[in-house]
């Protein structure tokens, strides 16, 4: 096993976005390496979601650059390549798991079609093979194959979230963005989802950027953390460093505010 660090998968330089005169996120820079999970924590309104939108090609930032090491074309500057290229990236090499499954699923088509869509979007035209892959992925996210033809609205919240994950992973993305993936789920359902995510991330070698306000989720999944407050990164580092030895006053407040069970 080589120990020379590979090139970063994502390089973010001075990312800044204003909504009018109000700062969404300011001067955010970091590198993300293959197989690395980066957590972005902070309270509501801290700029986490703005940052995630800017990173995931959904919101063009006012300033700064997002450089992505693509599979075939070397490093590309996300907001200077053409929109078709960007959208293709989102269907193939990237995935987005939304907090609300309704934002990430087609609620009017079956679970199998939800997974198959990304395959069809990149040109798969063999029904049998699409279906086999859909069923395989349902199994990997612990959904029984007799639910393949059911609509997602007949699924529980946890199942919908797992379906959303399968739909994203079927095209073998390298980078997945997650926005509060366990938000709104019961604690027991959360635990199952987290465990599943943890397994998938390590077995597939995914790079993940996960936004969460739940520090326990961050500790379980993330290798590194960035703590955001009022649009800026106030502290960053290894997850256990940030949580066990927080330096910034806001991080200390955040960590000390967690209720102990």
């Amino acid at each position, binding site marked *: 096993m080589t120990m020379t660090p590979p090139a970063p998968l994502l390089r973010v330089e001075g990312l800044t976005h204003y909504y009018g005169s109000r700062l969404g996120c300011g001067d955010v820079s970091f590198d993300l390496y293959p197989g690395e999970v980066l957590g972005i924590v902070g309270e509501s309104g801290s700029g986490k979601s703005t940052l995630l939108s800017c990173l995931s090609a959904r919101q063009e930032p006012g300033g700064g650059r997002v450089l992505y090491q693509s599979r075939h074309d070397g490093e590309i500057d996300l907001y200077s390549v053409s929109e078709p290229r960007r959208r293709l990236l989102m269907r193939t090499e990237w995935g987005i798991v939304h907090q609300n499954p309704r934002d990430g699923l087609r609620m009017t088509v079956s679970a199998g*079609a939800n997974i198959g869509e990304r395959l069809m979007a990149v040109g798969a035209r063999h029904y049998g093979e699409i279906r086999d892959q859909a069923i395989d992925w349902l199994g990997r996210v612990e959904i029984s194959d007799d639910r393949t033809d059911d609509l997602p609205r007949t699924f529980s919240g946890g199942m919908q979230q797992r379906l959303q994950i399968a739909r994203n992973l079927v095209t073998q993305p390298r980078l997945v963005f997650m926005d509060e993936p366990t938000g709104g789920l019961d604690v027991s359902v959360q635990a199952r989802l987290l465990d599943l995510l943890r397994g998938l991330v390590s077995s597939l070698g995914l790079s993940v950027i996960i936004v969460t306000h739940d520090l326990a989720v961050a500790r379980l999944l993330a290798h590194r953390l960035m703590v955001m407050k009022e649009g800026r990164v106030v502290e960053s580092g290894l997850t256990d460093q940030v949580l066990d030895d927080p330096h910034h006053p806001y991080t200390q407040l955040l960590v000390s505010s967690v209720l102990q069970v």
Partner: protein
Amino acid sequence: MTDTGYNYAYLDEQTKRMIRRAILKAVAIPGYQVPFAGREMPLPYGWGTGGIQVTAAIIGQDDTLKVIDQGADDTTNAVSIRRFFARTAAVKTTEKTVEATVIQTRHRIPETALTENQIMVYQVPIPEPLRWMEPRETETRKMHALQEYGVMHVKLYEDIARFGHIATTYDYPVMVNDRYLMAPSPIPKFDNPKLNNSPALQLFGAGREKRIYAVPPYTPVKSLDFTDHPFEVQRWDDCCALCGATDSFLDEVITDDKGGRMYVCSDSDYCGDRRAAGHVGPQGVDADAYQRATAAE
């Protein structure tokens, strides 16, 4: 009995020019939906306002118009639209496919092969084939621009998952000239192959949605499918009960309250021609016997 109170073919000349410009653009970009400033017409949306505006913009004094509704020339809508143009444009009208130079249609393409001297005008209720999957117009336009059509196969996938085969039987989506995804209007998929490489110019008008699109002559039009579920047209075990045709689109007609039924050609002109030429189906009478019977009344 031409009405004198209207401009030729009802629409004013500026409007017709505007529509012709839209048609020219549509012909230049096969399958692309061109927005146009659709006018209020003296009939309700859904009755063919888009088709009528296209016909009004292209019809000339030496044209012969045929109008089809559900394959037949003698249904209310077909009769009304034919009469509309007879009164406002004084054109000749016909029920014969071979005599027509402009054919406005709802639901069917004639069984008789079209020629380079003919123009088909389709009445279209919903021009956007992606609307079923994507409600946002901004997004569907982008999907067309970027040729992101994978989602259209999701609909076909759902058919196979539910019914074991592609159950979409009309308005079956097609790719035009390997570029634009197009709704062929609510024609049965039986007629889809007739769109492909047709010698006739084919124009599509959507009145409510105010869109015009076109398939120029000899343009490839391919119906979407899966490699393991190839596109197929409907087939019937029966032949036409009147003319015995086995190659035409058949309508099921209920004949009594006891479940009696027969299948007849949906294209009334095609069926009539065949009977006139001596073809007789299992429940049909030959043309001579028909003549004698009607003469005796």
